[in-house]
């Protein structure tokens, strides 16, 4: 299940859905949160490419399913303006056992970072700027290729 939304993301609700998935014996999650950068960050706005975003996330879900025997997959990404403490992204996987649930969840968030067309714009005390991509994210995503 892929969702891109402007409304707040409720990790508890998503975990509940995963735990109730047929055959679930393990649920693993990644929750990305807007950092406050020591009080320097005031707001973060996520722009995306409607249409391509959903296609990219669906392709990642299909790849995860081809690699691991997982049950339910839930990827919820927030877009628009948010503030420190808000949830940006939720990735959750249910499976019969924990090993494949952990692996698929880590794969999904690592590849989401490099494959899905989202862009972050920061508003801080020092001004506003588009966030640069991180080399470390590329390295983490490449481990799965």
């Amino acid at each position, binding site marked *: 299940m892929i969702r891109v939304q402007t409304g707040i993301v409720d990790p508890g609700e998503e975990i509940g859905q995963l735990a109730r998935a047929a055959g679930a014996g393990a649920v693993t999650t990644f929750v990305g949160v807007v950092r406050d950068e020591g009080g320097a960050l005031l707001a973060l706005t996520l722009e995306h490419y409607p249409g*391509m975003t959903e296609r990219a996330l669906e392709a990642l879900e299909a790849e995860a399913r081809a690699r691991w025997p997982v049950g339910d997959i839930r990827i919820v*990404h927030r877009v628009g303006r948010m503030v420190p403490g808000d949830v940006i*992204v939720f990735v959750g996987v249910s499976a019969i056992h924990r090993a494949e649930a952990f692996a698929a969840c880590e794969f999904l968030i690592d590849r989401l*970072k490099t*494959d899905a*067309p989202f*862009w972050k*714009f920061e508003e801080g005390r020092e001004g506003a700027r588009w966030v640069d*991509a991180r080399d470390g994210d590329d390295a983490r995503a490449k481990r799965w290729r």
Partner: protein
Amino acid sequence: MDVTIKYFAWMRERAGTPEERVVLPAHVATVADVVAWLVTRGENYAAAFAKPHLVRAAVDQDSASHETSVLGAREIAFFPPVTGG
């Protein structure tokens, strides 16, 4: 050939538009050709494409390289490296 061109993030700001309909000249066959043609259209496009190593592209919502064909494409997008999650 009639096609929609979309721009995102700081490329959108520099281009001055989120999207536009254009008619590509007959010699434009690849993503690289589109870029080379766009930058001749005005200062705003030259600014959007001023850092070639930071330009990513998609053709009909699939990731593309500079060599990807745009023949028959309905939508071409340009954007900086992604930073979601």
